[in-house]
């Protein structure tokens, strides 16, 4: 049969084939090449992570000015010389030689189609998939890696360390329990042969259900943020069924501190089917968003203290005096938590809290602590750490270690009721501090009561007698001049009088304002740098002692640290709840190179 004579028949066959193509799907190789990593991983995959552009991440990690500074630090260079790393360098050198490529372009090319990690519950293994735009490269890499492993093992007297296996036309290498193979454009590395085989089967057109077949995964994957550098997915439900984190997921934490900080999050986590993570990065910032899907009734009544009875408890708008280093504002109804203790904690912990209630009541002039004092304090609070600007009028001893000032700011729904008891408690505390201080040779704190335009200020400062020599390098306690300030509905408990004064003015200006987030944490890089720089001598001394460095080495290390911190502009954490999700966002901002 010639083409010329039978062209009609050939044309018909081609037409039929074209028509049938969508029904039978693409050819094996075409179909496999299009498969995503999630389609190659089995449905029993419990953790999945992807980095779409590893080359960009690598560039950020290695080329960013911050990274360059780290790489230039003596500690980093010393770390690179660690004897434990020597075998790794040997492997890298050998791989470069075998591949005739430097490691970085090699890695970039090998992963330019993405880098993926999966953890499979069925095989109890993990798998790493790297996709390359060069179809030959994974195969060359796998062969070279096997050669290098074989040589290294032979040098240690083991001639049979690498086993070559053929599986459905795919060459795989087994080294101890690990397996690596080139599967089309993919480099597959796994610590379990079964898992590597499952990936290969999926690539070769196997019909076993994949991770991507799960509706839940696909829905979660579709929510991946645009431009995310990385994305991860964790099947919480499966982990819970396996008993992972049993204590954290228990109904009662029996740790009031953890309950206060994380109780609401754990409630959502306890019911969430999965968790996702979006990683966003550019030259000046890195953000991670952890998202939990919410379900109805996931917050039990006893934990209403966390997000508020309607779930809309927003943190107070942060007060940000000059030099604010750290700011933590949150909505937590401590009174509600305290009074729900029998439902939140076991009998022992609840009994301890009940005892604490009695003790603290004594401290507050006999008023019931949980029933009267805490409700008057209110659910919105702020913790600040502030590197105060230098005080030009400072006369007292200058402490050797300069501790930033700190304050608690509370918004009271009933300031008239709580104010007298707070003052009594403050005076009692100062009296205790003086008795303790006298026995330890510390000077006396002297109380002062002042009426200011912004409110009442009670403070205590170390007594400096006339004729006392100005003292440099004084003891650490000279950092403190504790103060209690009441400005409208705001109660301020500060470690220094100056900070209390500063906050009183700010509190009056933004009274009652809240933010959308339930919890908000901010860290300011410049203020952190100032706080560290103020203690440079102390840091150098500690470095000399702890590292055994010479003064010159210690100075270099601390200067390097200060330069690094200087590059960090800010960091923040937001915990925000909506009807559908609970999201925890963490971000770090780095100064642009020009700044």
């Amino acid at each position, binding site marked *: 049969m010639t083409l010329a004579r039978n062209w009609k028949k050939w044309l018909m066959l081609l037409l039929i084939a074209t028509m049938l193509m969508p029904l039978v799907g693409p050819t094996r190789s075409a179909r496999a090449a299009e498969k995503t990593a999630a389609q190659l991983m089995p449905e029993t995959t419990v953790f999945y992570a992807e980095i779409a552009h590893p080359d960009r991440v690598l560039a950020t990690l290695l080329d960013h000015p911050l990274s360059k500074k780290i790489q230039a630090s003596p500690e980093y260079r010393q770390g690179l*010389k660690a*004897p434990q790393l020597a075998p790794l360098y040997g492997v890298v050198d050998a791989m470069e030689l075998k591949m005739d490529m430097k490691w970085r372009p090699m890695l970039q090319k090998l992963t330019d189609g993405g880098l993926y990690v999966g953890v499979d519950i069925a095989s109890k293994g993990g798998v790493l998939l790297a996709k390359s735009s060069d179809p030959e490269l994974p195969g060359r890499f796998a062969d070279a890696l096997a050669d290098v492993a074989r040589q290294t093992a032979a040098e240690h007297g083991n001639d049979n360390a690498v086993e070559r296996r053929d599986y459905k036309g795919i060459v795989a290498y087994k080294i101890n329990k690990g397996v690596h193979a080139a599967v089309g454009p993919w480099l597959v590395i796994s610590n379990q042969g079964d898992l590597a085989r499952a990936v290969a089967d999926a690539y070769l057109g196997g019909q076993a259900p994949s991770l991507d077949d799960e509706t839940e995964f696909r829905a979660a994957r579709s929510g991946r943020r645009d431009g995310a550098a990385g994305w991860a997915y964790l099947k919480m439900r499966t982990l819970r069924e396996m008993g992972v984190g049993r204590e954290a997921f228990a109904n009662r934490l029996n740790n009031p501190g953890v309950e206060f900080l994380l109780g609401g999050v754990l409630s959502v986590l306890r019911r969430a089917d999965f968790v996702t993570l979006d990683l966003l990065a550019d030259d000046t910032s890195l953000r991670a968003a952890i998202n939990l899907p919410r379900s109805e009734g996931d917050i039990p009544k006893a934990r209403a203290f966390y997000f508020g009875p309607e779930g809309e408890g927003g943190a107070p708008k942060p007060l940000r005096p000059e030099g604010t280093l750290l700011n933590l504002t949150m909505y937590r109804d401590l009174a509600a938590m305290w009074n729900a203790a029998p439902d939140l904690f076991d009998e022992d912990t609840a009994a301890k809290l009940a005892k604490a209630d009695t003790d603290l009541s004594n401290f507050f002039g006999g008023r019931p602590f949980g029933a009267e004092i805490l409700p008057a304090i209110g659910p919105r609070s702020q913790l600040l750490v502030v590197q105060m600007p230098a005080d030009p009028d400072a006369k007292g001893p200058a*402490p*050797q*270690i300069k501790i930033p000032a700190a304050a608690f700011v509370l918004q009271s729904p009933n300031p008239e009721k709580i104010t007298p008891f707070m003052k009594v408690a403050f005076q009692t505390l100062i009296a205790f501090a003086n008795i303790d201080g006298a026995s*330890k*040779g510390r000077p006396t704190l002297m109380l002062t009561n002042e009426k200011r335009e912004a409110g009442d200020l009670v403070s205590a400062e170390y007594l400096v007698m006339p004729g006392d020599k100005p003292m440099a*390098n004084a*003891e*650490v*306690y000279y950092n403190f001049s504790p103060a209690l300030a009441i400005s409208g509905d705001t109660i301020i408990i500060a470690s220094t009088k100056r900070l209390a004064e500063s906050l009183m003015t700010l509190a009056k200006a933004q009274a009652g304002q809240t933010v959308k987030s339930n919890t908000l944490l901010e860290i300011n890089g410049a203020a952190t740098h100032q706080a560290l720089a103020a203690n440079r*001598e*102390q840091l*150098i*001394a*500690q470095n*000399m*002692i*702890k*590292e*055994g*460095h*010479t*003064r010159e080495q210690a100075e270099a290390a601390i200067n390097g640290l200060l330069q690094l911190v200087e590059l960090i502009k800010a960091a923040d954490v937001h915990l925000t709840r909506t009807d559908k999700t609970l999201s925890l966002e963490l971000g770090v901002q780095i100064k642009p190179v020009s700044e």
Partner: protein
Amino acid sequence: MPTDLTELDPQQAWAPYTPDAQRPWNIRRAAHLYRRAAFGADYATLTAAVDAGPATVIDALFTASEPAGDGANQRGDGSDAVAAFDRQMESLSSAMMGTGDPRALSASWLYRMVNTPAPLLERVTLCWHDHFATSAAKVTKSRLMLDHLDLLRSHALGAFEPFVQAISRDPAMLIWLDSTVNRRVSPNENYAREVMELFCLGVGHYTEDDIKQVARAFTGWEVHRDRFTFNKFQHDTRDKTFLGHTGDYDGDDAIRIILAQPAASRHIARKLARAFVCDEPELPDTLIQPLADQLRDNGFVIAPVVRRILSSSLFFSEHAIGRKVRSPVTLGVGMLRAFDATTNMNQLAAAVDTLGQLPLFPPSVKGWDGGRTWINSSTLLGRANLARAFGLGGQVKFNAGSLAATAAKHGVTKPADAVNWMLDLIVPLDPPADVRDQLVAIASGPGDENQRLGKTLQAIGTLPEFNLA
């Protein structure tokens, strides 16, 4: 030299050491000198010392440690290195004081011992700390302990009388021995007792009544707001009679009279001889007397006596080499200096504390008992572990990069050389030949160079000789 100390001729014993065929000036003797006078030294320093000769080495040790001249605040030869190091240490101590934790001062003092270019001064200061033992456990204030330590250091090689006078006014010492409650109507005898029994005379050279009378002389010597204060209202101005003298004496008078006793110079001379020559047997009076005479004839100045001891024929003899048990501090600091290494000083402080000697925290006013008491089943294991930390642990950082690199720096490549090198550095007496063979076998064993040397060092740490100085 006779094997029995009582048969030694004092003049011959304290005569300057002259190397000869029986007692050559070599690495082992140079290491002995540095171990006793300077905690230890690395191989480069030892080889340079062998080239320079003992007299030059001893001169250099003293030059770095003594004041540069009359009234000079600066120590040493006036070189920038010593002055710069002193400034750095002032800054370091000041920073450590800021923590308010006296244990931080212990760590900073260990740092100083490891890194000082004037190690003799620190070694003698450690001696006086043992002598005028004052503990931060009771004093508690870092500032007072730092001032106390500075006082010990500033007088360490100077005249003894002003030293005792300064100690008697030292707030840390006054708090430690309860002088803050030494009142006219009820004199506290603690300080008076110790100034005679432990600091100046020794038991048997005073009576209980002398103690009562001397306590009266010190009444009113108090501490207010961390400073020495003379409270004239609490001072007993009546006559006191002690040690054959009567008068309205105060504390300074008491010290002068006490130090005028013949027993005083012998007590101090014996203390110095025990610190630098041997723990046991006790040196006979005939050997102590020439040193006591030297003290007495030279205004009780300490440096010349220490120099005479370190330069002596006795010091370089078998009566001294390996005849002391290394204290935990001299062991830990000595190892670091010998291997040109450093470490986390807080951890070193914790290690020597476990072994029974945390600087600034002596167990009692008598100081540390020393000698054989350093060794028991528990501390013996701890001492071996210290050697293990150098060999196989990760906390010690060698300036050359690693133990193997340190050895290579000194041209040590063969297993037998490595064993000799380590023994030269840290062991004063040769172990038996079969033990040495075993060490060479370990140094020739499997693993890389660091592992082999580490295991060898660990094995050396288990030898009885390792604990000697």
